[in-house]
């Protein structure tokens, strides 16, 4: 397959080198330095398909910022299979990293993570990523997550809760099933502090038997988002009603999870007058399920069969 790329050179390339790739001792493959440098200290099943893994690095967590991701890896057949996951930990208080991991039945890594004994050695990469809170931002913060996309927001909310005058926050959490609305207890634990959190869970498949008895909001996160913005006084076209909630100074929006949700939510926010500069996004990889539908796998965008 050949794809036209702007700026690409014309077809036809020179030969590679005067000699073949070395074989013998010189041809030994360089091994990336991926040590087992951390230990799995806890695994808590939050739902049949989502687990909270707690991993403690041997050398301590070191500096990181809420919202960043780290590669979590397990040695399988002499090779470290790794995927990046957002840390849910509070940088100011953590001695370990919490990860929310959705099991992918045919994945290269997550089935192993499910059976790995607590106490097992694992690989943990350095914290990376720029999906972090804007320093000094006093605007109300709107967080929108699907599934395990709530992970970085736990760290962010824990960070905000330590501020003397934290901004008002709204957390909109969407999932297909009630059981996937994980970490509601973590949010409740933050509420008694000085942080104002409006927690808005929503279920996208209200007719699913697994959701029997659900009396909360229904609809996909991006659809409920429009309703949340309306109730806060933001209208399509950018109209603002300062007396109603979010105020005239705008909001800062953070989106994390299924790439489809992120794209749709971005469109809704822009339509409601939120500047693109105030919209921050982290996209998680989506795995096709047996039914052909996609579900957020929990790893950072594109991270292969997890």
């Amino acid at each position, binding site marked *: *397959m*050949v*794809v*036209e*790329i702007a*700026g*690409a*050179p*014309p*077809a*036809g*390339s*020179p*030969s*590679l*080198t*005067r*000699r*073949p*790739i*070395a074989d013998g001792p*010189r*041809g*030994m*493959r*360089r091994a*990336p330095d*991926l040590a087992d440098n951390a230990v799995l200290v806890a695994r808590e099943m939050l739902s049949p398909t989502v687990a909270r893994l707690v991993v403690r690095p041997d050398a301590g967590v070191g500096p990181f910022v809420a919202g960043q*991701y*780290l*590669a979590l*890896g397990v040695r399988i057949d002499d*090779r470290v299979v*790794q*995927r*990046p996951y957002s840390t849910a930990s509070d940088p100011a208080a953590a001695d370990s990293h919490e990860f929310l991991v959705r099991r992918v039945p045919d994945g290269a890594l997550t089935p192993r993570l499910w059976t790995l004994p607590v106490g097992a050695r694992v690989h943990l*990469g*350095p914290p*990376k*990523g720029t999906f972090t809170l804007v320093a000094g931002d006093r605007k109300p913060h709107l967080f929108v997550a699907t599934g395990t996309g709530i992970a970085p927001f736990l760290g962010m909310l824990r960070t905000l809760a330590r501020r003397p005058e934290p901004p008002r926050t709204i957390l909109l959490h969407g999932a297909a099933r009630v059981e996937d609305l994980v970490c509601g207890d973590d949010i409740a634990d933050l509420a008694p502090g000085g942080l104002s959190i409006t927690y808005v869970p929503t279920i996208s498949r209200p007719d699913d038997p697994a959701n029997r008895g659900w009396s909360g909001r229904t609809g996909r996160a991006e659809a409920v988002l429009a309703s949340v913005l309306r109730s806060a006084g933001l209208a399509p076209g950018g109209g603002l009603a300062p007396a109603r909630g979010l105020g005239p100074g705008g909001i800062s929006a953070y989106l994390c999870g299924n790439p489809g949700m992120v794209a749709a939510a971005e469109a809704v926010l822009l339509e409601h007058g939120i500047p693109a500069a105030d919209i921050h996004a982290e996209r998680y*990889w989506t795995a096709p399920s047996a039914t052909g539908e996609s579900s957020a796998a929990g790893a*950072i*965008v*594109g*991270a*292969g069969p997890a």
Partner: protein
Amino acid sequence: MAFVIAAPCIDHLDQACVEVCPVDCISHDPGVDRKAYIDPEGCIECGACESACPQGAIMLDVRLPAAWANFTEIDRGWWIDPEWARDAVDSQAA
């Protein structure tokens, strides 16, 4: 599939890709190499490097234009025989 670093990286070596790669599968020898190299066995195809590269040098191997097709082998080869890869880069840049 894996992402590959093609000709626009040569002599630029911005290294934004190294910063964002979640699995640290991009490397080069400072002062020796003219470009960075992706380990195809470590690449998880997340695409973080592609969007971070200011040169537009990184793309999936299946999307490489014909003139840059050799860079799939060059990136793979550097992890086995760096001198071979450097010769190949010089040939491509010539």
